[in-house]
């Protein structure tokens, strides 16, 4: 049991470290370090521009999408080398959040199902950040039940015509391409009538509207499709095999490890270490210490769980679905921690203006954003199902709509 690199890993780390030291946009390092939650915000610079510039620089030197094959814009690096890179990239890695969906989900799906010609054409600019991709799965009628989606794709000649609506699409408004899951046969059970495509987000007939979230921000979009045309050559996988294709996408989402989910713990610890209550420092209060300790061991537990997964990677093993615990634990933690930090301030905890609120309103912002964290990318409940079914081997849910043709599944509850 040790934390030491193998000689090979150490050499890779040294090379990465040296390149980052010579090339990273250091003028933003401090701001990036301090923006611990959500999308990074930079004063006097457009984050998207800075992120794209950094990604392009990495790609030109062979440091983008490290685990992808070289011919598709990657480096052909091992999984552990990718983790080492992430560790060395540190705060600059926050600039990659713009590309996470494209690199983590769209790219692997294209790699698995697109033609060789398309792979060579589309993957390198995706790796280099010149093109941004989004993922169009969720719909108003298909959230956790993704396979309940209703967006239609109908074949006309060599083209498919798309009509319908997607929702919760991150970054649709600045994306160049997207992968799109559609219904191609409504007369068969729901999992058997889906087909996957990729398309240009500039296609005629696409309308993108930002969603105003409960916290007042707009990180996601609704995407409307009206007679949008996609050539059949941009189909990913067989017609009506889209469900299996989407599993590739979702599996890759869960393979991304080592990034470390934000929990809010270090912010809370720092806050309690400085906050004066009526009878002294918050951190000297027995009740406060008990709460802090409770969250401290969850934060460290997550950290060391991720190290165990990295260790498995280092040995060439494949980490299992155990990694699903990260989001499940971190989501609730951030919600509970932010509410507690406000509780410690009494009535004044309600104030959220940067001039009145402690830590410039960070905890209030965390509290309002947290419900989304517990829903996006698989709700807490879906995560628990995954753990129960794939790790513990419990039976899947009994699905009453499993063998029913999609167009006969009830669409209304209480009327």
């Amino acid at each position, binding site marked *: *049991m*040790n*934390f*030491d*690199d193998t000689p090979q*890993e150490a050499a890779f780390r040294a090379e990465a470290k040296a390149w980052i030291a010579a090339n990273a946009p250091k003028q933003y390092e401090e701001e990036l370090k301090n923006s611990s939650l959500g999308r990074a915000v930079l004063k006097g610079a457009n984050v998207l521009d800075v992120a794209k510039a950094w990604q392009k620089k990495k790609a030109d030197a062979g440091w983008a999408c490290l685990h992808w094959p070289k011919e598709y814009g990657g480096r052909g690096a091992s999984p552990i080398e990718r983790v080492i890179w992430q560790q060395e990239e540190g705060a600059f890695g926050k600039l990659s959040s713009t590309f996470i969906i494209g690199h983590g989900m769209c790219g692997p799906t294209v790699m698995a199902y697109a033609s060789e010609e398309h792979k060579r054409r589309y993957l390198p600019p995706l790796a280099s950040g010149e093109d941004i991709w989004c993922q169009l799965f969720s719909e108003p009628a298909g959230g956790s039940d993704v396979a309940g989606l209703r967006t239609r794709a109908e074949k006309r000649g060599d083209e498919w015509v798309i009509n319908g609506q997607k929702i919760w699409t991150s970054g649709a408004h600045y994306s160049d391409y997207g992968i799109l899951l559609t219904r191609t046969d409504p007369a068969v059970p729901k999992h058997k009538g889906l087909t996957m495509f990729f398309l240009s987000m500039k296609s005629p007939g696409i309308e993108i509207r930002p969603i105003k979230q409960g916290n007042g921000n707009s990180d996601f979009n609704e995407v409307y499709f009206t007679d949008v045309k996609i050539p059949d050559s941009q189909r990913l996988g067989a017609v009506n095999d889209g469900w299996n294709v989407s599993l590739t996408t979702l599996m890759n989402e869960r393979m991304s490890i080592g990034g470390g989910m934000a929990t809010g713990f270090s912010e809370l*610890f720092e806050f309690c*270490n400085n906050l004066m209550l009526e009878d002294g420092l918050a*951190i000297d209060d*027995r009740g406060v*210490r*008990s709460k*802090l*300790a*409770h969250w*401290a*061991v*969850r934060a*460290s*537990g*997550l*950290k*060391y*769980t991720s*190290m*165990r997964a*990295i*260790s*498995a990677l*280092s*040995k060439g093993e494949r980490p299992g679905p*155990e990694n699903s*615990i990260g989001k*499940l*634990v971190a989501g609730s933690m951030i919600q509970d921690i932010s509410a507690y930090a406000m509780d410690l301030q009494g009535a004044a905890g309600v104030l959220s203006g940067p001039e009145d609120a402690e830590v410039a309103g960070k905890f209030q912002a965390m509290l309002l954003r947290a419900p989304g964290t517990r829903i996006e990318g698989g709700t807490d*409940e879906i*995560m*628990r*199902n995954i*753990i*129960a*079914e794939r*790790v*513990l*081997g*419990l*039976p*899947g*849910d*009994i699905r009453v709509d499993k063998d029913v043709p999609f167009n006969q599944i009830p669409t209304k509850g209480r009327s």
Partner: protein
Amino acid sequence: MNFDFSDEQKQLRDTARKFLAEKCPPKAVRAVIGGKAPYDRDLWKGLAEMGLLGVAIPEAYGGTGAGHLELCVIAEEMGRALAPVPFSSTVYLAAEALLIAGSEAQKQKWLPVIASGDAIGTLALFEGKGNPSPQAIKLAASGGKLDGVKKPVADGAIADFAIVAARTGSTGRETDISLFLVDMKADGVEAKALANIDPSRNQAEIVFKNCKAEPLGALGEGWSIIAQVLDRAAVLLAFEQVGGADRALEMGRDYALDRIAFGRPIGSFQAIKHMLADMYVSATLARSNCYYGAWALSTNAGELPEAAAAARISATQAFQHCAKNNIQVHGGMGFTWEFDCHLYYRRANATALSLGSLSYWEDALIDRMRKRNAA
């Protein structure tokens, strides 16, 4: 990086698991609970013959000298099997105290008999309610004689020797405390077993009256030795707790797969699945904290005090969580004497209190994190 046990250590785990599955089935735990014997003597002998009692004791003192990582691996299996033997008191507390502070003669005398299974040792620290603290120690030592009462003392009524924390000064500082080693056959020492929530383990009161004792470590260094012993024991006991938590989770999972209600396995209901998933999360977080504790313990790293507290807290929570929800998954049958669920529930809640309560370790963790932060 290899943040995992080695293949040899995993083999040792398999060996220990197999041995305990055979020699320590729930029936053996129940025999001790039923009062047939204060501990499972055959099992204790068997563990000694397998060399499992002395893995962290150097060869020069009769152990196998393998190390603390190996001891962590065995501790987990002991917890899993609810082994009704004085392992934690003898191996984590007494042997570690001897290794840290014992004189050459003391080590020569006691460590080989620990490894061979011929001596049971313990640490006599608590004096009634409360957590470990120098202020709580009233038992007085003067002129090499001890006077006072210790309780609860784990395995106190079956121990051959005890390491006793005693007051040797009155300055109000930590240096008022010194350690003494007492042969339990000595005059002026009397131990009696006490009823406790986990009768698979012995708890006792020990009364010392003008009892002859030899110092362990230097005068006034008792508290600093205790602090080190508690940190080491916290990691080891945390592994026991993780072993118990894992087993309770497995029992719940197995029952959920086998039990049919409303025409389907109860493990197909989300209410049950989610409860088991949450148990898995607790157990996984605890295991990961324990691995860090194991690393710190085996390398004697400066991080040990913080790592030990984190492992201890996390493992206490996980074992309590898994043990109580294992009963819930079982429903009514889980509340019967006949099913083994209560054995884990008892052990989970008893181990949560040995070495000091959850709130004691929470307090300690935050203190230690602050120290690191300030440094």
